[in-house]
């Protein structure tokens, strides 16, 4: 690699590494071991592990019938439903939580129905509330992964199976079960990993000795007990969890084992009778589970939009500015790192580094670093921006890297032969060819930042608010109409930002 190309990547790598390693070092220094931990912290670790495992298991188990039904059936709105299943990935967690409370909460629609039938009512709070929310976020993700697995079975294999006269049971045994064995461990691990660092869900729906995650325990040690030593020790536990899960994930990535196919439009397996009913039930329940909470928010929140206090609009402006800054920082790091990554392992490693830390871990470290120098409250917004960008960086790299590889494989020689280098190469070749993944990555970074309710809870004194924090405050003071209104605003802004950035990328793609 020429020095001119390596320099921006080296700078980005140093910056990304510093953003993660400096806070980690501060945490390790302050913790000085794990002696500050209490019995309650042990319980938090245990809860973190089993709720993540159960959330992953439930999401994957439920995803199989839903994905199979979506694969086999053709019905109006199928494409829209599959697209909608991508939404929870971008949906601000606090919005989803509010929606789940509206449906499953004490005064929710479900309990109203149960009470009318004379049945005992349920609560959305506690351990099962946390797991319910995790399944809400991750069932659609798992469904899409499994559906993708089904669609990736080459139609040639299905034709071969049909020509050999294999029945549904044999097709399941020879084609579908191997596919599920290949897809499900990866899906479960991905969900397990996400749920390990669950914060906002546990903050609102969990808490107490029986439903506190390690992330939430860090926050509580920090805010309620002002015990920085314990917060740092908990942060170490969280890092160890993340590293162990990443090591596991690296070992478990199984190849699918299916040969290449020409992807002829394959006829889904005909499945009459009872299976038809089963498929219908799976699709209906999944769609209702997904749509009802968001619908409840929209019904209640849209009329309240005109009635929002000025502080909410102010918080919305703050969130937009943060999202813009965080997106720019994400791309400024991700682009040079992904361009260098095919030739330099260190570039990829630097971009993946944030996966070892969680937002609250980074927040604790940055707090420890900042405190001797400046009042941490003054740094609320910069720290939030930096942590949000760090959390988006691995996603952005994953999106850019395959496109960068094919760009370099296809056009490196031609560009070199024509002396197309430096900024001219960036302007005429790199940016046009990468416009699409850049726009998509920008959309994801912006949506993540818009919806983030994490590190800001550590730093904010309540005067500096983002939209999710303002929404959380409204929920805390039981102004539920206004909270629903703010949730509509947050949901609308988040998806609008994602849509706009993704569209700009597509539009700038000259293909």
């Amino acid at each position: 690699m020429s020095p001119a190309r390596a320099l921006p990547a080296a700078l980005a790598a140093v910056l990304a590494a510093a953003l993660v390693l400096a806070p980690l070092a501060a945490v390790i220094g302050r913790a000085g071991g794990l002696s500050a931990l209490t019995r309650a912290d042990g319980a938090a670790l245990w809860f973190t592990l089993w709720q993540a495992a159960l959330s992953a298991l439930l999401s994957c188990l439920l995803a199989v019938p839903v994905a199979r039904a979506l694969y086999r059936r053709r019905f109006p709105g199928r494409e829209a439903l599959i697209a909608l299943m991508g939404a929870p990935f971008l949906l601000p967690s606090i919005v989803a939580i509010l929606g789940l409370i509206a449906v499953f909460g004490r005064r929710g629609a479900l309990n109203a129905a149960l009470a009318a039938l004379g049945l005992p009512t349920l609560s959305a709070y506690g351990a099962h509330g946390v797991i319910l929310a995790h399944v809400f976020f991750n069932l659609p993700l798992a469904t899409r992964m499994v559906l993708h697995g089904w669609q990736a079975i080459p139609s040639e294999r299905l034709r071969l199976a049909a020509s050999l006269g294999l029945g549904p049971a044999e097709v399941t045994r020879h084609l579908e079960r191997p596919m599920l064995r290949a897809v499900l461990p990866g899906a479960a691990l991905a969900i397990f990993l996400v749920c390990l660092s669950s914060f906002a869900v546990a903050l609102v729906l969990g808490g107490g000795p029986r439903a506190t995650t390690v992330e939430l325990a860090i926050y509580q040690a920090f805010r309620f007990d002002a015990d920085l030593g314990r917060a740092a020790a908990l942060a170490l536990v969280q890092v160890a969890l993340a590293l162990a899960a990443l090591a596991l994930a690296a070992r478990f990535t199984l190849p699918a084992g299916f040969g290449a196919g020409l992807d002829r439009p394959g006829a889904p397996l005909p499945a009459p009778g009872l299976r038809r009913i089963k498929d219908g039930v799976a699709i209906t329940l999944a769609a209702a589970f997904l749509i009802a909470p968001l619908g409840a928010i929209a019904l209640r929140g849209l009329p309240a939009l005109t009635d929002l206090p000025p502080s909410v609009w102010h918080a919305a402006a703050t969130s937009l500015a943060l999202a813009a800054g965080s997106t720019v920082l994400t791309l400024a790091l991700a682009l040079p790192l992904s361009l260098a990554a095919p030739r330099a392992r260190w570039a990829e490693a630097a971009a993946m580094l944030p996966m070892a830390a969680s937002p609250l871990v980074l927040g604790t470290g940055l707090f420890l670093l900042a405190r001797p120098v400046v009042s941490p409250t003054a740094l609320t917004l910069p720290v939030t921006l930096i942590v949000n960008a760090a959390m988006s960086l691995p996603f952005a790299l994953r999106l850019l890297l395959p496109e960068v590889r094919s760009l370099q494989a296809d056009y490196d020689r031609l560009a070199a032969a024509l002396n197309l280098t430096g900024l001219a190469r960036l302007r005429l070749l790199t940016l046009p060819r990468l416009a699409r993944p850049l726009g998509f990555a920008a959309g994801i970074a912006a949506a993540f930042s818009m919806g983030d309710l994490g590190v800001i809870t550590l730093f904010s004194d309540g005067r500096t608010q983002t939209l999710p924090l303002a929404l959380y405050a409204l929920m805390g003071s039981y102004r539920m109409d206004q909270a629903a209104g703010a949730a509509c605003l947050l949901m609308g802004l988040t998806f609008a930002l994602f849509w706009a950035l993704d569209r700009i990328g597509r539009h700038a793609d000259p293909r």
Partner: protein
Amino acid sequence: MLTLDDLLLEQGDFRLSADLTVTRGARVAVMGPSGAGKSTLLAAIAGFLAPARGRILWSGTDITRLAPGARPLSILFQDQNLFPHLSVEQNIGLGLDPKLRLGRAEHTRIEEALAQVGLDGMARRKPAELSGGQQSRVALARTLLRDRPLLLLDEPFAALGPALKAEMLALVATIASAQGTTVLMVSHDPADARSLCPETILVAEGRALPPQPTAPLLDSPPPALRAYLGG
């Protein structure tokens, strides 16, 4: 004059040596069995593969360490000769200025080059809107404007039908004679070599031999070439 001075190329287990000169203005076919290293030889001359030993000289100047774009040559690959997201005009313009700062004079030259390869009025199109033959013509128009004294052809017309390929090779010959360009052309087709290239470099058994007259070589080919040509 192109000189390969005691050149040794290595790629894993593969080794190819060459010690030869090509006179200025010559048109030379590069022939040999598949996998013998014809493309590797061109890649080294073009600067995509650093030789393990030896030097590459053009008119006595050592170009072994020059970047590909700084060498006195143009190369056309088997595929990916155009950027699909740039217009015909921009693709050709890259031959005049890699930063694409094109003034009125440059646009006139691009129009002239397009006319020369028979693509008048196609300047604003994207490569995907052109046929395979037309795309080859665009790449040729760019080499025309780059005006480098050496042209390397690594089978850029292999995907075209026989008639179209003959047409493109005739166009290459016209351009090369007009500009006095030295041409090195990988070929699988003895007829192409006979009609276009008075001389041939035979690449076989780890060596690239100095250019020899094409007709006698093809009339009584050595064993390696005979097995490849089949009869």
